Structure formats: C-alpha cells, structure tokens
C-alpha cells in the first residue's frame, strides 16, 4: 500500500520539476541564468487562479479536452513503475498504457479541431501523423523487453531482471525509447516547445486557444507524460545500479534524463518537418533490431 502512495506522490508532485530542469540546463548553455527551477509550479498556480475565455465557435468538446487528457495521463501513470513498482500492475498493462496515452492525445486533438482555426488543424494533423510513427517503437520495445525479462506488465519489464545476454538489445531499446520520448513530449529535434512561431509548432499550436485552468491542466498533463516516459527509461537502467530501489536514485535518474534532454536541445537545431518521420523510423528500426536479438 505504501508503494501505491509513494508512486502517487511522485506522479502528482514531481512532474513540473522536469521542464524546470530542462529550461535551466538550456539557459546554462546559452550563458543565461534562466528562470527558477520551480517556475513551472508558479505558472501552474497562476493559471489555476485565472478565468478562462471560450470562443463562441467552440463546443463542449473544447472544454472537455484538457480534463480528459489529464485524466487519461494520470490513469496511465498509475500503471507505470515510478519510485516503486506499480501496485496496480497486471499482465498486459503496457497495452492499456499505450491506449491511455492515445486517449489523452485524442482528447487534445479533438479539442484543437473543435476550435476551428487553421493553425490548430495543422497542428492536430502533424501530431497525429507523427504519433502514428512513434507508437510502433513503443510496441516493439515492449515486445523485446517482454521476451528478455519474461514479464508481461510494465513493472516486470522495466526494472525487472533482464537476461545478461541482452546487452546490445538494451542499448537499442534505450535509444529507441529516448527518441520516442523526445517526439511524444514535443521536444527538439521534433518540436520546439519554446517557439512562438505558430506555423512551425506541433503540440503548442493545438493548445493556443486554451487559457487559465484549462492551460494549467494541459501543461501539468504534458509534464506528467514527460515524467512517465523518463521513469520508464530510468527503471530500465536501475537494475545496473547496486541498491537502486528508492527515492534518491530514482530522483537522480529523472533529473539526469531532464539534463540529457536539455543538452540535446542545446546542441542541435530542430529537424525540418518532413524529416521527422525519418527520425521516428530510426527509432522503430532500433526497437525492431532489439526484438530480433531476443529471437535468437
């Protein structure tokens, strides 16, 4: 029972810290001080205290979007091993995890289309197109891990005992998942979360019309999604750290992933939009090779 509460605390409290660390890392690279690490929390508090403005052209879907999206991510978060292995784990929960994230995306996209603006339509089209390239790598990575660990739940696969012969496969899966993490969380080189250029955005443009608590839900939900993906990566590598279970190592791991994202964002430019599928196909290939390695 304590494992459930510990995970719940991590799931609800830690997420906004990640964008804070990423921004701080990028600022350090740019020779700037940057906003405080806790700034995303202040932003959330500020947004929650605001009212919301709704366009007359929108329907109930527009208002439902952010709430539904956040709810789906929280549910998905309950299945993911965070500080401890998930208390609600069951065989095959990886499939439910993928579909809950899909539901969350559907809610955001439907709300964006509901606004009826041409930008948001473009953003929605891009988001859906790219996520259909990201999904196969997750499924293939899960398949490879299922064979390598013999587990069928996320908690079993991530953080379980991986066969020692699986070294190369693990490298491929970590690489593939990191690529998908960047794509799913609209980071450089796929999307630029800092841009103000509405024609180039993917995720950001879909939420242009949301404000106040709705925007807070969206920002909170996307930072939570980032935490979930990062936690999967961290848990995958935990067995290699002696005495690893617990807050200290997990938090350090999450912070390390955030710094790594910040370093990637500082050291390369964004891809041209038509090149993004190629980037994601590389992730699919890596995961597919990992599956092949488990079949020998």
């Amino acid at each position, binding site marked *: 029972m304590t494992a459930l509460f510990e995970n719940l605390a991590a799931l609800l409290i830690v997420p906004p810290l990640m964008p804070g660390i990423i921004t701080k890392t990028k600022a350090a690279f740019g020779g700037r001080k940057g906003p405080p690490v806790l700034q995303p929390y202040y932003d959330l508090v500020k947004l929650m205290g605001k009212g919301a403005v709704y366009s007359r052209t929108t329907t109930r879907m527009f208002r439902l979007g952010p709430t539904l999206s956040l709810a789906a991510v929280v549910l998905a978060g309950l299945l993911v091993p965070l500080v401890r292995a998930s208390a609600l784990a069951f065989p095959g929960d990886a499939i439910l995890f993928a579909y809950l994230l899909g539901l969350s995306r559907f809610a955001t996209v439907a709300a964006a289309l509901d606004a009826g603006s041409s930008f948001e339509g473009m953003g929605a089209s891009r988001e859906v197109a790219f996520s259909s390239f990201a999904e196969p790598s997750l499924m293939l990575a899960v398949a490879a891990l299922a064979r390598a660990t013999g587990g069928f739940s996320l908690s079993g696969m991530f953080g379980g005992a991986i066969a020692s012969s699986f070294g190369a496969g693990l490298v491929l899966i970590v690489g593939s998942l990191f690529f998908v993490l960047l794509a799913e969380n609209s980071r450089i080189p796929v999307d630029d979360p800092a841009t103000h*250029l509405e*024609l180039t955005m993917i995720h950001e443009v879909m939420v242009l019309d949301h404000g106040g608590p709705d925007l807070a839900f969206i920002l909170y939900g996307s930072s939570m999604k980032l935490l979930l993906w990062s936690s999967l990566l961290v848990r995958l590598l935990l067995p290699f750290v002696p005495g690893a279970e617990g807050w200290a190592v997990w938090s350090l791991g999450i912070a390390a992933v955030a710094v790594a994202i910040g370093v990637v964002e500082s050291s390369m430019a964004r891809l041209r939009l038509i090149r993004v599928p190629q980037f994601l196909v590389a992730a699919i290939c890596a995961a597919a090779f990992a599956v092949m390695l488990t079949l020998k």
Partner: protein
Amino acid sequence: MSPTSRFRTLRNGGAVELAAIPVVAVEEFRASVLRAAKAGLRLCALFARPVEGGTGLCSVLADDARGFLYTLFSEPTRAFRSLASDLPQAHLFEREIAESSDIAVSEHPWLKPVRMGFPDAAVFFRESGDEVHEVAVGPIHAGIIEPGHFRFQCHGETVHHLEIQLGYQHRGVEALLAGGPDRRCVFVAESISGDTAVGHALAYCSNLESLAGARASLRGEALRAAALELERLSDHTGDLGAMSGDVGFLPVAAYFGRLRGEFLNMLMALCGNRFGRGLVRPGGAAFDLTNAMAEDFSARLARARTDLNAISGLLFESASVLGRFDETGVVSRQTARDLGLVGLAARASGLDLDVRRDHPHGFYRFRHIPVVKIDSGDVYARAMLRHLESLRSLDFLEELIADLPRGAARAACPAPRPGRFAVCLVEGWRGEICHVAETGDDGRFRSYKIVDPSFHNWPAVAMAMRGGEISDFPLCNKSFNLSYAGHDL
C-alpha cells in the same frame, strides 16, 4: 538611339535643376522606361509627383555597371497603361501609384491596394479544390514582430501560393516630409524603419546637402560610413541570432544576441543612442570620435571579429542547422533579376549589386568595400552572406577608424535651393535605400519619395515560399528580415 537618350543622367547623391529633366508624353515615358529596363537598367523608383495642372510620373533607373542614374518625367496625366506584365519590377510601384494618386493604372495584372487594403476588405488569390486549404496569419502574430497579413494556399504542408498584405504601419512619412525641410524632418527620416535609422538619415541628409549645393565635411562622411557599417554589423549579427532561434538552436541565438549588443554599444558610445539616432545630420555628423574612443573601438572590433568567427563556426558547422538552411526558400537568379531585388537578398541569389561599389557616394568614394555574392539563393546563402559581409564591414571599419580624416565633424549646410531635384542611394544593411527629393519655387520639398529596400524585396518572400513547406515560412521570412514599417511608410 541609345536606350537612355530620353533620360537626364545624374550621379548618386547629385542634384540637377528641375528644368533640366526632360518631360515627355506618357506613352513615350512608358516606352522609354521599358526600353531602358530591357537594356539592363534597374528600376529604383517609379512614382507620381504633383505638377502644375495635375499629376505626372517620375522614374529613376540605375545603370549599375557604369554608375549612372537616369531620370525622366511624364506630362500630367490621368491614365497610365501598366508596365508590370512586361516589367515585373514595376508591379508594386504601379499599385502604389494607383492607390495614392489620381492616375488610373490600366491593364495591371493584379491591381489592388498596397497599403490601404486590409484583409477583410481585400481580394486574395484563391485556389479551389477539395484538398487545398487556406491559412491566414496575422496581422497579429504570436511573437512580438511587426504586423502583416499572410495568406497561404496550401496542399497539406506544401505552399502553392503566398500573398502578403501590408499597410498596418502606414504613417504617411512622405506626406510628413513634404513641405520641409524643418527641424522635425530628420527625426522622421530616422524613424522610417527603426533598424535602419542611420541608412535613412544618411539618404535624407545627402539629399539636403546636394539640394543646397553644399558638401558634408570629410570627417563627417567618414563617421557616417562608420555608423552605417556598425548598423549593418548589429543587424546582420542580430539576424543570424534570430535565424538560429527559429531553427531552435538556442545557445547560438543567445551568443549572437550578445554580439549584437557589442555593436549597438559602440553606436551608443559614438552618439548616445544604441540605434545611431541623432548622429547623422545635414553637413556631417553631430558627434565626433575622440582618439581615445577610436583606440577603444579598434580593440572592441578586434574582439568582435574573434567572437563572430567563433559563433558563426558553431552555427555553420552544425549539421542539423545546415539541414534546415540548405535549399530552403530558394529565389533563383532569374526571379531575383525580374523582381528587381536589391541588397542582401539580391546578392544571395547571385546578382552582383552593391550601391557602395556601383554608385559610390560619401566616404565610399575613397575607401572601397569588396562585394560578396553567393549563387544558391536559399536561406543558407542569406545567412552565410550576413556572416561574410560582417567580416568585410569589420575590415572596412578597422581601417577607417585607424585613419580618420582630420577636421570638423560637421560643416554648415544652407537651405535648399529652389527648383532642384536630388536622388540619393544608400546601401543600408538590407539593400538599396532610395530617396528622391524635389524642391518647389520656395525652396521647400514639393515631393519627397522614399523607397525602402523592403519595397523591392517583399515579393521575393512570396516567391521563395512557392513549393516550400509552410513550417519553413518563419525561417524563410526571417532570412529576408524585411521591414514592414519601411514598406508601409
């Protein structure tokens, strides 16, 4: 008959008696402009001017190979048959004439307002079809930039056509200057486009001097050239930073931003304003550079050169950046020539044009600056050209500051003489700034025409987007970085 025999010849920065400029019937005016343009001359300005008994036309063409300017007036007229189908350079000029004067332009391929047609009233080119969609952006943008309306016809992510509607910054600059010169005029000239304060003030002051038959002091000319190059450096490095930011390469954007500050601080030290306002005044420069300051500047320029090379290295050696810059937003050499592009955008498309060399005026008569051109016409060319031109400007500045002419920074500049006509071209950082002034019998401006380089170059942005991806538009637009205010006047 030579193609320019109808025209009055003059040099950049020169003035002639109004009476010395031929006035011909409008059909002959049209044929002469067309013949001169076919012979390779470039249209610098084409505008309506008030004359006794109505409105006449005036054209200024440039022969860049020989360094001459040619001008011609037409008789008062109420109608003008468009040149745009034969001479695309004239397209926007004719729309401007139709909008701002009582001359009706006929047979124009796309006659709509330049500055007065806001999106809810204007007609836009439209594609039809099930899979074609229209995207409208602006005039209010997500970032803090100037207002402009962009209408894209897209097929998926591919842009088939872009139409640009400006005019939101129209302040009536030419009308404010007409009736001058007065104490306000030079400030108006400095605010035509905020990032080209030195360039426009220089063109204005040169016209004032040539109308008066006066000359600026030599030291003043040198200081003006120094300020113009500092302005070029600050804008070029600022743009390189902005382009890095647009592709999400943020550290380099921050480094370029810092470097831009160095150049702005030098302008600040020179005249007390980071954008060089208040420096260029009729007769020379309002502020002088002391020897101690000159030594300090030399050291700062040397440091800036090291930094520029290091930061540009980070930008141009990054594969992910080159992947975005290469082959994005291509303007072919033929298109550039047809549209009459000027300045940086023209040189990035392989045209060998630079007012500083082709029509030298002011201190550029004594000290030369090599012209750089690149043939690829894409975003990379426009970025690389900014870097290379900055290096040339640094060379020029270092030599200039080490060897400034002696004497006063400013000479006396009397009032303009009546009945004269002056043209001044200045190579601002974007390209050719053209100011055409004309004094009436009382020695006051009867008309004052301004052509900002942006006016020539905006159509190139639309052409660069054809067949490109809509997500590349912000980068492409930034690579030109044209002025909305300079276009709207």
